[in-house]
Every structure is written in C-alpha cells, then in structure tokens.
C-alpha cells in the first residue's frame, strides 16, 4: 500500500511535508525512531543533513536510508508501508521477534504515528472507527503505542469535514491509553501535559485563538499558568 501522504500532490502534500519537517527538526541525533504510515513516513527524508538518526521498521530493519530510485530498488527490502527502501551503512536486518523486542521492550526512543483522535489525557485512537468495524486492522500500532519510550502524533488538525481530531475524550476505540506526549498538526505543535493540551508553537500566520477554535478541548499556552 503506497502511503496516502505520498499519493498526494500540490498543497496537500506540501502541507503534510511541512508537518513532517517540523517533526524531523525535533529529533535529536542518536535516537532510534519508528515511523508510522502516512505523514510520519515522510519524516525520514526530512531529518536535517548530517544528523544521525536510526529509523526502525517493524518488519525487521534498523537504519533505513532514503527511498531508492526505481533502478536501484531492491524488491526484497521494504518498509512497513510495503514501499522499497534503502539501508544506511551500519544498518541491520532481523526477524519479527527481534523487531518487536525492540518495540515492546522500550528500546525505541520515539514512535511517530498518525491518529484518528488524540485526547487531552494522551489517549490515542488510530486503528478502528467503531467497535463494529467492517474490516479492522491493527498492525503494529498497539505494540508501538505501548512500547516506545515516547509517542508523538503527526496528523491534520481536523478531519476533511472540519471536525477536530484533538478532543477531550476519544470516541473511537483506543489504541493505547495515556501515551501521546506531543502532537504536530498543520496548525501547530501541542504538548500533552498533566493539565491537557498546551500549544507550544504555531504554524506561520496562525494564532492561539485560531488553534483553539479548531480544537475540541481546552487549549493552554505552553508553560503559561492559568
């Protein structure tokens, strides 16, 4: 499945690349990072030049490199989105038990996931839209959401219908409870803290009031007391 974000063109892709670039800038050198499907997949190509970050793929890769051009693609080497990838020097390949020992054993510094909803208490819903889903599919989302040292979400701030994806409580079935630490959207960067959503940064031309208007939960100014 080609990641949805990669099928997009024009402003929509640019918008998503901007979110991914913002995530990539905040990843320190030396971190081991797993990237979910969608906007998170775009992060790997946007890590600043010269910064060594090891990207892990759940299907058994540590140290993924940039996407190959068609000529040099190795069909046996794919990422979690089933796209062909390359390896950095120093990369390693392994089986699923080892891969999920990394994920479930708390060895992954950061996992960046897409989401359907994030709640102000850090609850994450990103695998199913109802208890009677017509074709549920969870993949590695629950393992990653529970096992990684920290979870950041990268997503559009609202649905295509304009509904906020940042909510006071998730309506969709949870992937994991209380795990999201930070959310990157097209409107800004939101920290999830003990008191709820704190707006740390805004996209160019966006105000605190704009973000609050599109957020279905109370928004605080980052680090500023009530």
């Amino acid at each position, binding site marked *: 499945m080609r990641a949805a974000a990669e099928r997009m063109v024009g402003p929509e892709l640019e918008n998503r690349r901007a979110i991914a670039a913002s995530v990539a800038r905040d990843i320190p050198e030396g971190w081991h990072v797993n990237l979910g499907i969608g906007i998170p997949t775009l992060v790997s190509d946007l890590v600043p030049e010269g910064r060594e970050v090891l990207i892990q793929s759940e299907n058994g890769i540590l140290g993924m490199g940039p996407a190959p051009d068609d000529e040099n693609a190795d069909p046996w080497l794919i990422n979690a989105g089933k796209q062909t990838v390359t390896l950095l020097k120093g990369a390693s390949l392994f089986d*699923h038990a080892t891969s999920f020992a990394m994920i479930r054993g708390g060895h992954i510094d950061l996992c960046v996931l897409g989401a359907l909803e994030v709640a102000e208490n850090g609850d994450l819903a990103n695998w199913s839209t109802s208890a009677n889903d017509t074709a549920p599919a969870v993949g590695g989302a629950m393992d990653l959401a*529970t096992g990684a040292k920290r979870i950041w979400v990268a997503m559009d701030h609202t649905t295509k219908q304009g509904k906020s994806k940042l909510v006071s409580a998730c309506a969709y079935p949870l992937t994991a409870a209380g795990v999201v630490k930070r959310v990157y959207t097209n409107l800004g960067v939101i920290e999830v803290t003990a008191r709820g959503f704190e707006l740390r940064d805004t996209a160019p031309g966006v105000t605190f009031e704009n973000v609050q208007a599109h957020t279905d939960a109370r928004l605080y100014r980052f680090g500023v007391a009530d």
Partner: protein
Amino acid sequence: MIEKRVATAAEALADVKNGSTVLVGGFGQIGHPMALIDGLIEQGAKDLVVVCNNAGVGRSGLPRLMYLGRVRKIVCSYPRTAAVFSELYAAGKLELEIVPQGTLVERIRAAGAGIGGFFTRTGAGTLLAGGKETREIDGLPYVFEKPLKGDVALVEAWEADRWGNLTYRGSGANFNPVMATGAVVTIAQAQRVVELGDIAPERVTTPSIFVNRVVAVPYEYPYPAIEY
C-alpha cells in the same frame, strides 16, 4: 542420509489435513511463500485456520484460498490488504481474529519455545483485551496472551540445504524464523537450494532442526513485485 528436499510443493503438502492451523510467513509479499500457497490451493485441504500478518494481495495466493471457501478463520494483524478478505468478512463467511503484530509473533514464539503464554502491555485497556485475563505488574496493566501453535508452517527462505538450514534475504526474514519454530511440520520454499556446508554456520538464521521439508522454488522477483 538426512534428506529433507522434496521435488514439488504437491509432495511437500500432501498430508495437510482439513481443519489444520497453517502459519504463513511474510510481511506483505516479501518472504511470503506463494508457491506453497498455490500448492495448498491445489492440494484441496479445507476448513483451514490461516495465521499470517496480512491477508495477501490481489486475487492470487491467500486471497484465492479464501475466495475458494477453504479458509474458516484468519488470524492476522493487518488483513485490510486484500479486497477478497474484506468482502468475505463483511458477508460473514470468514472468521477473523485480529492480533497486534508483536503479540502475534510472540504467541507463535511462545508455542515454538514451549512457553505457556505471557503477559504483555500491548492491548491493555483496548477492545482487543476483551475476555482476556489481566494483571497489574509493577503498577502497570498487562494482558495475558496464549501461545499460538500451527499444524503446518509455510515459510520462504533465500537459501536452504538438504538438512533444512535456512537464510533469508533483505526484509524477508520477518515472521519466517519464528513460524518455523511454531508448527508441528515446517515446510520451506527456498529460492536457492545449496550443498551442505555452503551456508556458513554463522549465517544460518533458521537451524535445520526446525525444518521438515524443503522445496526449491527459484524465481526472479517477489510476486507481485510491488503491487500495492
């Protein structure tokens, strides 16, 4: 002389019984034993429980096995890869057990390693913990998961020898080495069958003890190369 090589997929699969639980390796189409699945389609066993990370792609392989009504239940982390699965599931013609990917591989590993189950944090507090034993360990909620054993495992290797030692290529290991340990009978399709000793001992990923039959299936590229 130990000889695990068999000439054809048909011969390798001849004794698969109706109602078998079949572990099928692969992540997407990589390391996915298409020739053995085709052989299973020909062989005719039905009422199967298929354990595989995905439900296949397009209309051949697992989707064809499901389309032919030979699969009673699929145990899967991400089945939403084949339209055939979605249609049969929506029509109530296929049971689904959805399992988080890490829990899926660990349940198979437990079966292969003689472990009677394990507690994991994955899935705690979600729909997938429904009906399962839970326990608080060091202040955190855990869910009990049981081992998942196969009657047969179908795996795909890069190289194999007549004892059944296996290597894998690229991201083609994925579920295969674990599934090879988790079934009563493990059948490997290998792109290259080599002489004993040609695989350096340090490169053996699946030791021969876990493998019962080896079928040579040389082909150029994973099929379909990259379809979805």
